[in-house]
């Protein structure tokens, strides 16, 4: 709110060079960043490469003034600066597009831009800003209806709103946190065009990603982060993917997934022309049909927000099915309660795990039986058998490597990755007939990811089936026996994993090809 005169942009030069020097930051005593050195110059696109949980986002949040570093300093053009709030960073010419967009879903595009723009007039901001934004949009070929609410926009459009916000504020340095994860291949191309234009105009860009291909094509230089430390710097011209991968993971990456060929068994799940409505009252799943068999992993590929979440929730009973039916082993489970569906052998690893998967204030062992507490082995008619519950919880934390000193710990005190492992353990350990898994490896490190993938294959070989939702095509191709591509709530086609037509998967994910 208060802007000391010394921070006025008029007195500051354009960012020629930004350096982070010796930055350290820890949360709850666990280091997230240690002694980070990093620099970026004007007209340069710097890639920040690292696995999930390597500390990339924490580092950038420090640069954006959201967190304060425990040690180290940030220099702009050689001068140390204090960035104690996002406003400080904005005024210094730093803009950030967060992975989860910082947009007000219920507000219009123009209201969102007015919120972030530093020179928004006090009275009638919407009317007065309109002309300026339109002029600016033309310059970058953005075409967005300013009166639309954010939730009515596609992920790509939302990202463009974020970029406009940053550029309007005169950002010299733009930080993009995993910008491609929600985009279709075509939208990624458009983003690259925008970034190249910005580079020509003398902007600097920090591009955060864990995808090697993108880093190699987009960035000039790359800095690699592992477990909170810088492990390497390189010019992208002088390096290759394999070297970068080794730096990122700390060893040679051999995803030695050993998928034994199995013939599929009897059908387990049959979905017949199901229709589901999304949160905003619009149809999210339209007439989707498919079968799922024993010994099979069925993958659903697609860009986030095309009905995956709604489909998973509908099958597991959290969301109403408007039309159509779902059967498990021939029994109709359409719109049964989640508990009855669970009793039919369907486990569920939800996409929003923190939102659905845990009761944060309860103990770890309470959370270990969230979906299973009604089973005979954990409770009699009225009372819970806490001895069995605690044993069960201990088994999960050993088997799934959940890092905690005790099970008498409120689950909110665990890190996101550990919570995720507990939920996965809980859902897998009961030998489900069908596991519905939404992005199960998202946010896990390489070791845990590998471990989990083996578990999914184990389930498959034991005669269960897995319905796997993932945005990670590599994961889909490695694990799945059959693959469906979803776009705008419809299947663009269902293919065996060795089907040649899958080379057009990018087009299908963008909705421009259908079989």
């Amino acid at each position: 709110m208060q802007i000391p005169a010394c921070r006025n942009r008029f007195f500051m030069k354009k960012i020629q060079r930004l350096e982070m020097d010796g930055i350290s930051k820890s949360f709850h005593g666990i280091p997230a960043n240690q002694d980070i050195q990093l620099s970026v110059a004007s007209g340069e696109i710097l890639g920040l490469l690292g696995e999930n949980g390597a500390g990339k986002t924490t580092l950038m949040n420090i640069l954006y003034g959201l967190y304060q570093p425990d040690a180290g300093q940030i220099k702009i053009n050689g001068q140390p600066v204090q960035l104690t709030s996002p406003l400080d960073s904005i005024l210094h010419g730093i803009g950030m597009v967060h992975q989860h967009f910082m947009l007000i879903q219920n507000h219009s595009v123009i209201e969102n831009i007015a919120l972030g723009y530093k020179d928004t007039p006090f009275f009638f901001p919407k009317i007065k800003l309109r002309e300026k934004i339109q002029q600016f949009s033309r310059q970058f070929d953005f075409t967005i209806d300013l009166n639309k609410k954010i939730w009515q926009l596609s992920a790509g459009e939302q990202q463009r709103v974020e970029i406009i916000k940053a550029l309007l504020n005169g950002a010299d340095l733009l930080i993009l946190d995993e910008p491609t994860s929600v985009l279709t291949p075509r939208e990624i191309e458009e983003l690259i065009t925008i970034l190249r234009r910005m580079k020509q105009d003398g902007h600097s860009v920090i591009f955060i990603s864990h995808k090697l291909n993108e880093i190699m094509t987009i960035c000039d230089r790359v800095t690699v982060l592992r477990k909170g430390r810088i492990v390497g710097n390189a010019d992208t011209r002088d390096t290759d993917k394999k070297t970068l991968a080794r730096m990122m993971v700390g060893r040679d990456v051999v995803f030695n997934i050993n998928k034994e060929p199995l013939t599929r068994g009897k059908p387990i799940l049959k979905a017949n022309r199901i229709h589901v409505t999304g949160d905003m009252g619009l149809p999210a799943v339209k007439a989707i049909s498919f079968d799922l068999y024993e010994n099979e992993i069925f993958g659903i590929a697609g860009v986030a927000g095309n009905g995956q979440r709604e489909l998973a929730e509908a099958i597991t009973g959290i969301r109403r099915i408007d039309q159509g039916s779902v059967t498990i082993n021939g029994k109709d489970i359409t719109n049964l309660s989640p508990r009855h569906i669970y009793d039919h052998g369907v486990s569920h690893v939800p996409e929003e795990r923190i939102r659905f998967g845990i009761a944060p204030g309860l103990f770890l062992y309470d959370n270990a039986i969230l979906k299973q507490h009604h089973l005979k082995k954990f409770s009699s008619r009225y009372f819970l058998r806490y001895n069995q519950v605690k044993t069960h919880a201990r088994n999960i934390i050993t088997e799934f490597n959940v890092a905690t000193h005790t099970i008498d710990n409120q689950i909110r005190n665990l890190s996101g990755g550990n919570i995720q492992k507990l939920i996965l353990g809980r859902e897998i350990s009961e030998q489900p007939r069908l596991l519905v898994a939404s992005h199960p490896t998202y946010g896990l490190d390489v070791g845990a990811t590998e471990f989990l993938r083996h578990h999914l294959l184990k389930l498959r070989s034991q005669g269960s089936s897995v319905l796997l939702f993932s945005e990670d095509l590599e994961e889909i191709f490695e694990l799945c026996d059959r693959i469906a591509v979803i776009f705008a709530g419809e299947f663009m086609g269902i293919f065996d994993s060795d089907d040649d037509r899958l080379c057009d998967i990018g087009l299908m994910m963008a909705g421009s090809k259908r079989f």
Partner: protein
Amino acid sequence: MIHITSTDRYRITRWRVVMTNVFSLAAGLVVISVIFVIAGVNPLFAISEIFQGSFGSVYGFKETITKAIPLILIGAGLTLAFRARFWNIGAEGQLLMGAIFATWTGLTFGNTLPAWGIIPLMFAAGFLGGALWGIIPAILKIKYAINEVISTLMLNYICAHILTMLIVGPWRGGTRFGFPGTDTLPEAAILSVIPGSRIHYVTLILALVCAAVLTLLIYRTRFGYEARVVGENPDAGKYAGIDFLKTTLILMAVSGGLAGMAGVGEVAGIHHYLGYPDSMSSGYGFTAIIVAWLAKLNPLYTIISGIFFAGILVGGDAIQISLGLPAATVNIVNGTLLIFLIMGDYFLNHKISITFKTR
């Protein structure tokens, strides 16, 4: 430069909980003292008078126990509702509804049934009355998404007016010389007391048993588990397939029912007839909210916190007489203590460190 940083605390010992509460109450008393000073009352005298009046004499202590009975009953019921994040502010109305049901039962059957028949019947009727009045907001919330804070409060007002309507109208007793109020309950329908006091021990025992049983219910049973999950995270409850409507209905029936039984105790143990709402309950439904909060939503601890706040009620009465303070003084004490208790929670869950740094 002074730097204040706050970090989450994850291991919270029982000792720390107790000490935080003690410090919060102490800090609250300091502020109350300041208010007393401003009101022209010597705070040390007033506060010592409060505790002298409630715990300092045999008579005072008996009164404290008497008033603790409804507070424990209601407070224990509220812990269950609050655990499920159902903000039942309507215990006052539920108490009155219990009193109405019990009075009708007592007046109707009191002359035909022996005491061992009529007393349980009245408690059952009181439970039923309170439960019904508690279920209404539960249905309104689950079926119509109506905020329970507002609905339970509105039901308080409505119940008070229903009661008044009854005692000035159809139920007005012939023996009251035209004053509003029902006839006195028959002998069999009156709860006996510990001689020399007003402690209606049947209700007291009931309150203690309820507190113990509810503790078991919350921490050991499937229902308690489901209520806690729903309260912690309704979305997780949905994901786990917990029946929201059923859970909420049961817990509000219990919460309201216990308040209703407290109403039975007040009518059959203290007043022996049904009179104006203000005289039937001295704000027990609201004070019990603080009782539940101080007990950290553990029903067993409401026994201690119930006695503590009963002491404040009794002591408050004492200073009203000796210092000429208005009845509302108790509200100041309650409000201030509650504010400090919830503020104390922050310091329980966070570690605050103050460092001096020179730049």
